[in-house]
């Protein structure tokens, strides 16, 4: 019995299909759920949505595929060189005689996949300028219309309303309710932000929402994840209305926080930023009223001062003053006149005396003393200078140096 015949006797000959079927059975049952660690290489994304890659270490390589439905679930971006841990099953593909790892879950090694996704998205958005300080809009002071994008069933809205309750209530809060976690949360949040912007474009100026709070209360990293999504980041970035993000607690910083115009540590803080304290407003108002009154009083004092100055100047031109002045001048003048007149009078007096003396020399009485006489008509007292001025029988009076003679005229010739 040759070795060959004995071999033939005991040998079992597989067809290629048969052996492949056995290999498939063994591999797929033994490796139905395995964790594999390796480095990504030769990563390719196909239009079908399936991802193809290899996992490798120093000595071996394992081809792998992530089908469409699983690929969608991956938060981070798979890149060559990335160290990953995968959960999957080995599958033998008979037509090619190849085996590969069908990956159902994949996580970056050493860091959670969410964390990696966050880092990757952060880098991308940062490069695009979504976190740029220059893009941030100022938060209005004392806004009277405040939009809130959050869930009606969450803690955030309760906190906001609680703050409103104890602060200045002269505000209009408009809530756009959205889901803040779960499947459609990111789209709903993004739409909620956009809705407020659309609303603003349809209403008149004083009905517009001036600022919005976008957020939710605390939760696990996964619960807050919607606020790390790109679609939310972009909605915030494109909002014309300033956005205050308020996600979870102080320690939680999401991408929404980085894009938002202002990050509030919590929803309560966000509300406190936009809803002022009554006491603060009262203090502010009181000091304004005080300044109003003081400035008015000051202004009044200014006017008073001006009036006083004008009055002073006016008094200088006052008629009473002028009269006094003129009187004074008149008195001066009068005094001068008096002095001059006295002087003049004295002068004239002596001239007059001289004239009188001179005149007295010419008096007819002095001539009479030398023997002349004057004859007057008795009837009218006229001086008789010629004979024909008188008739016979008339009475005449003759004045001598001493005494007078009355005579009747006998004859005229």
């Amino acid at each position: 019995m040759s070795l060959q015949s004995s071999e033939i006797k005991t040998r079992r000959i597989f067809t290629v299909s048969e052996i492949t079927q056995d290999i498939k059975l063994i591999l797929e049952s033994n490796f139905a759920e395995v964790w594999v660690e390796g480095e990504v290489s030769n990563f390719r994304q196909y239009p079908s949505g399936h991802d193809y890659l290899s996992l490798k270490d120093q000595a071996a390589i394992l081809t792998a595929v992530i089908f469409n439905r699983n690929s969608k679930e991956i938060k981070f971006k798979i890149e060559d060189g990335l160290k990953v841990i995968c959960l999957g099953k080995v599958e033998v593909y008979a037509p090619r005689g190849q085996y590969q790892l069908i990956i159902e879950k994949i996580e970056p090694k050493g860091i959670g996949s969410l964390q990696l996704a966050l880092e990757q998205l952060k880098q991308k958005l940062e490069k695009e300028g979504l976190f740029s300080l220059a893009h941030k809009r100022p938060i209005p002071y004392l806004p009277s219309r405040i939009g809130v994008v959050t869930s009606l069933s969450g803690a955030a809205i309760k906190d906001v309303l609680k703050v409103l309750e104890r602060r200045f209530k002269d505000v209009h809060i408009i809530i756009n309710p959205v889901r803040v976690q779960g499947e459609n949360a990111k789209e709903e949040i993004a739409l909620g932000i956009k809705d407020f912007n659309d609303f603003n474009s349809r209403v008149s100026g004083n009905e517009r929402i001036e600022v919005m709070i976008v957020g939710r209360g605390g939760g696990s990293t996964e619960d807050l994840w919607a606020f790390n999504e790109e679609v939310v980041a972009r909605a915030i970035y494109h909002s014309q209305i300033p956005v205050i993000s308020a996600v979870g607690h102080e320690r939680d910083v999401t991408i929404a926080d980085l894009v938002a115009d202002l990050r509030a540590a919590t929803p309560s803080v966000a509300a406190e930023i936009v809803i002022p304290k009554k006491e603060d407003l009262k203090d502010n108002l009181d000091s304004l009223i005080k300044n109003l009154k003081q400035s008015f009083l000051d202004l009044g004092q200014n006017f008073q001062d001006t009036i006083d100055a004008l009055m002073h100047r006016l008094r200088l031109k006052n008629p009473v003053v002028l009269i006094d002045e003129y009187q004074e001048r008149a008195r001066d003048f009068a005094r001068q006149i008096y002095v001059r007149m006295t002087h003049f009078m004295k002068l004239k007096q002596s001239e007059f005396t001289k004239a009188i003396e001179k005149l007295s020399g010419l008096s007819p009485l002095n001539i009479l003393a030398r023997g002349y006489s004057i004859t007057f008509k008795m009837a009218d007292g006229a001086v008789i200078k010629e004979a024909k001025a008188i008739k016979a029988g008339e009475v005449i009076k003759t004045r001598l140096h001493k005494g007078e003679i009355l005579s009747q005229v006998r004859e005229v010739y």
Partner: protein
Amino acid sequence: MAEMKFEDALKKLEKIVEDLEKGDLSLDEALKKYQEGIELSRLCSFRLGNAKKKIDLLVKNKKGDFELKPLDETKIEQ
């Protein structure tokens, strides 16, 4: 004036005080401004004491138009 927003009234009041503090107004203007300032401050004080909150929900109807509907707060408190 009664319709004026608190914020606007406060801003206007600030402006009036500023104008008065500058002091280059005519007496007439100053009086007018002062009176307006007093009215504004009364309005603000009144608002501070009597403000009523208003909370609405933004609702999009079938036509895609927005409506504001008052919020039933009892639903939130639960």
